[in-house]
């Protein structure tokens, strides 16, 4: 593998200059020791040398020997200026102090916060923890996945829901990573809360297109979430009490300046209210979730650092003892950062990810357990080679073993059901990638290739089906035997052309391949949705996307504006036959239909980054259509999540040192839905007659939320805050569903009933830290 890489390296236009030295190191928060991701470092004497620190805070700048001024800066931190004499390779860790007015203190015109303009990456959105902290959310439960829905091109799956669609792709087409581990079901309580406790989160980046080559496996987006490392100077504790949950966290040094830990936990207590109910039918129900994030890191020496991080979360719902389900994710990541030399940074990760559910049914002689899980083991190697100024190569590989148990039914002797084990599915998802970031003059390029290989492995029976879905042939494979394989090159290309310091054009093309498909035929996220690997029947989904954008900053980069357009073509998309049986079905692949999709749109975004009032306005104009053989007579039809208009306005106002006020307003076109175009009588009941798929629209959705945060006085180390918020301030009844039925009062008529979920949801949250 290494040899191939070296060979490929030679093909890149890497201009190695004679006699240069390198300054490198890690950029951290000076008070907490937390590494800063995406901080910028530049040698003032070389205006084009600017770069940003990687996921582990590492930076590396090379130049000819001489005296230089190194400036390191990061949003929300005071910039630091360091004089250096570059007469050899220097290792220089940098600590920044939080707060202050960022750049004003260092009046250097050549430093500009215009990364968004110059960097070739397109379709990237980063959210800061302060945005997440201040934006109002339902029940006051801060939620990264709900806050990103306010960004252009990212659509909410529904009222109060943490699920989302990116540029028309399905909810299963988002790669959601927590410290590099795939989180297969990122939601709690049927999608109303995400699995990400915002206390534990340091950084979140969303890629809607132009994905860097290091990411792969999903068609629409990558949501890369990084957990806090923990304070390596002193112990701190914090927590919060809200309407829905209580949170607690602790962090501190393991060995001062060398290692730290961070633990965050949260648990909801809706079920405690249920238990207070005098109604024995209600107080025997349970309904809660909890999650735990743990992370530790230790620096062995300047060249080696180890990280361990883990997540464990579980939902438990039960209904009068007769029915219960618990489900959740567990992930673990062990990482080793190694600095080979001042230009070559390596990270090796070993990752475990598991999602499982267990259903218990105990009623009327039926005593049944149903379990299912997906388990991944993943070895991942990422290397970054800082060649010279504006010239960087990323390369690496990963190998994932997927083991999926689609369903095991354990039934008692008196049950009406048989015990059954659907055969486990094994596969290997491998990839190798290389990409080159290069800035010759006004043009900034990032181009690369990801090669993905997918191997379907035995043991098991693999079927072929006739048109009616009957198995016509069965092939048996031994353990480890190759059933079928898919190889797909995924080219990634993006470039920016800077017109001046404040404006640029960008262009990107990327291909993504998805080998795991989520089978789900319900409207909302269902914990029993099944991940199905590609196979002899199901082919990997492929998406090709081109995007063009114009980026412009105003007022000394205080305002950012961008306009992006995209066109995405998707192949091997999955839909379901009418009446598909997806649960506990050995022949589930016979229940599927295949087709293609297309999505295109325009995204406008303007953000005010500084001053008392900050916030953004985003607008998306888009169309998403599908064409599936066997649906809608094979004609193109709008996808459910096709939304013509989608607007979000976010404002955060820092009134004074104590009060922060915020408000959001969202508006979007209703989902495309199928409504009846007639009715008839059959089986002595009224039935509805349907014509085209998704030819109707739900009513438009709009809503305003407000919040106010009061910062308490800090006494010694103790600080606290109160957050008050109202979700859906003007109480609009947004349609969650519309159903058609006989009028209960007059059976000679039919009626349409609209259900709405949340109106005027007030909440209060108290947070503290010491």
């Amino acid at each position, binding site marked *: 593998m290494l040899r191939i890489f070296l060979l490929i390296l030679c093909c890149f236009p890497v201009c190695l200059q004679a006699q240069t030295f390198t300054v490198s190191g890690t950029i951290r928060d000076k008070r907490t020791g937390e590494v800063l991701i995406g901080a910028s470092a530049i040698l003032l004497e070389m205006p084009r040398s600017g770069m940003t620190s990687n996921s582990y805070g590492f930076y590396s700048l090379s130049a000819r020997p001489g005296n230089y001024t190194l400036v390191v800066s990061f949003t929300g931190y005071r910039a630091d200026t360091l004089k250096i004499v570059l007469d050899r390779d220097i290792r220089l860790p940098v600590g920044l102090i939080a707060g202050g007015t960022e750049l004003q203190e260092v009046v250097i015109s050549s430093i500009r916060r215009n990364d968004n303009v110059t960097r070739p990456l397109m379709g990237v959105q980063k959210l800061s923890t302060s945005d997440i902290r201040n934006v109002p959310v339902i029940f006051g439960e801060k939620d990264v996945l709900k806050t990103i829905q306010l960004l252009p091109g990212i659509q909410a799956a529904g009222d109060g829901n943490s699920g989302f669609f990116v540029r028309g792709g399905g909810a299963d087409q988002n790669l959601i990573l927590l410290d590099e581990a795939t989180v297969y079901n990122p939601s709690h309580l*049927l999608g109303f809360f995400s699995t990400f406790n915002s206390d534990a989160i340091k950084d979140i980046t969303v890629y809607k297109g132009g994905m860097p080559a290091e990411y792969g496996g999903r068609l629409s987006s990558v949501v890369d979430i990084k957990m806090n490392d923990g304070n390596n100077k002193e112990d701190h504790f914090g927590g919060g009490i809200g309407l829905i949950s209580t949170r607690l966290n602790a962090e501190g040094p393991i060995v001062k300046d060398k290692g730290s830990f961070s633990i965050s936990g949260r648990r909801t207590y809706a079920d405690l*209210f249920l238990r207070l109910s005098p*109604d024995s*039918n*209600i107080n025997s*129900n349970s*309904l809660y979730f909890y999650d735990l994030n743990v992370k530790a890191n230790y620096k062995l020496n300047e060249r080696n650092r180890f990280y361990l991080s883990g997540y464990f979360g579980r939902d438990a*719902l039960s*209904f*009068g003892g*007769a*029915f219960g389900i618990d489900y959740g994710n567990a992930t673990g990541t062990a990482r080793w950062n190694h600095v080979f030399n001042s230009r070559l940074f390596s990270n090796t990760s070993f990752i475990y990810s598991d999602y499982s559910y267990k*259903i218990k*049914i105990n*009623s009327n002689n039926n005593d049944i357990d149903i379990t299912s899980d997906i388990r991944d083991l993943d070895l991942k190697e990422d290397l970054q080679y800082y060649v010279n100024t504006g010239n960087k190569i990323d390369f690496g590989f990963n190998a994932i073993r997927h083991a999926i148990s689609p369903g095991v039914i354990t039934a008692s002797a008196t049950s*009406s*059901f*048989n015990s059954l084990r659907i055969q486990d599915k094994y596969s290997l998802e491998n990839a190798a990638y290389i990409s080159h970031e290069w800035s010759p003059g006004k043009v900034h390029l990032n181009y690369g290739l990801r090669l993905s290989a997918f191997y379907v492995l035995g043991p098991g029976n693999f079927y072929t089906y006739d048109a009616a879905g009957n198995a016509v042939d069965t092939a048996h494979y031994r353990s480890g035997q190759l059933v079928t394989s898919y190889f797909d090159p995924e080219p990634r290309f993006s470039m920016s052309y800077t017109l001046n310091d404040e404006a640029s054009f960008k262009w990107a093309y990327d291909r993504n391949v998805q080998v795991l498909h989520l089978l789900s*035929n*319900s*409207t909302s996220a269902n914990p029993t949705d099944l991940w199905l690997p590609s196979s002899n029947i199901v082919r990997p989904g492929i998406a090709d996307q081109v995007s063009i954008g114009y980026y412009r900053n105003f007022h000394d980069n205080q305002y950012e504006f961008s306009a992006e357009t995209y066109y995405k073509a998707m192949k091997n998309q999955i839909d379901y036959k*009418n*009446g598909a*049986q*997806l*649960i*506990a*079905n050995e022949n589930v692949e016979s229940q599927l239909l295949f087709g293609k999709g297309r999505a295109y749109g325009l995204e406008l975004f303007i953000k005010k980054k500084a001053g008392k009032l900050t916030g953004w306005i985003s607008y998306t104009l888009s169309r998403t259509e599908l064409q599936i053989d066997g649906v809608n007579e094979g004609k193109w039809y709008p996808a*459910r999540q096709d939304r013509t208009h989608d607007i979000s306005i976010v404002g955060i106002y820092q009134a004074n040192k104590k009060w922060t006020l915020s408000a959001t307003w969202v508006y979007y076109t209703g989902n495309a839905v*199928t*409504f*009846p*175009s*007639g*009715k*008839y*009588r*059959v089986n002595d*009941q009224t*039935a*509805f*007659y*349907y*014509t085209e*798929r*998704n030819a109707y629209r739900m009513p438009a959705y709009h809503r305003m939320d407000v919040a106010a945060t009061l910062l308490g006085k800090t006494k010694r180390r103790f600080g606290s805050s109160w957050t008050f918020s109202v979700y859906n301030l003007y109480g609009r009844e947004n*349609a*969650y*569903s*519309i*159903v058609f*039925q006989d009028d209960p009062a007059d*059976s000679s*008529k*039919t009626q349409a009933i*609209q*259900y*709405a*979920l949340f109106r005027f*949801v007030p909440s209060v949250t108290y947070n503290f830290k010491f």
Partner: protein
Amino acid sequence: MPMRVARIFFAILPFLSGFVACKKVVQVDLNNAAPQIVIEGEVTDMPGPYQVKISKTVPFGSGNNFPPVNGAIVRITDSTTGFTSALLENDSSGIYRTNAFVGQHGHTYLLSVNSEGMSYAASSAMPAAVRLDSVNFVRNLDLNNKPAINAVANFQDPPGPGNKYQFTEFVNGVQVPQIFVFEDRLSDGRYIRNTLYNDTVRLHQNDTVLVRMNCIDRNIYDYFFTLLQISGNGNFQSASPANPNSNLSNGALGYFSAHTVSQKSLVVY
């Protein structure tokens, strides 16, 4: 079973917040499709005559009066014996009757309908009979957490996969407007206790309940299973509703079923 699970999820949902879903009648501007033919016919192992009902769809906004289709030429043929019965319309009711014969297990029946220049056909094979062993009653919680009485149909599924069942429940002589189907895909050869979760009509002590069990063929199971998915009353509906998978040709709505009948009647205790 999965359907039931999904229903329960939605039922629990409002407890999450105490902000129970608001519900209101709305006006929806719906298209009016051209009237479509609806055919509903059966042959059973009980003595005939059997009937075929033919009607038309109406716009959603109209009353629930479905115009009968008169003057159609309707035939049912036993394809195993070649015997054909020409059905006669009862007045102008859109209801067509066979002469008296008795459907036979294992025979395949063909329906043909000619009406307004179009012809429609379907075939259905009558499965072997399975006897409804007994009916009892259980007390469960309904979707609103209230105690409810439900009937349980008990029967022995014969060995070998592919047995499909449909149930009809009558309370004091009135049919419960709900679809109950069961298949032995996950239950082959078991003694089945199938609870008829009745979300529409409440059972009370001393009500007379008749449970009718039909053994149906695969296509008819498919029809009622897909009809069930679009007939979710109340707060559950399919993500992308579609017309049920019919065994009738030429786009006709409805079904033609040859099935067995086994039934039990008893008073709720």
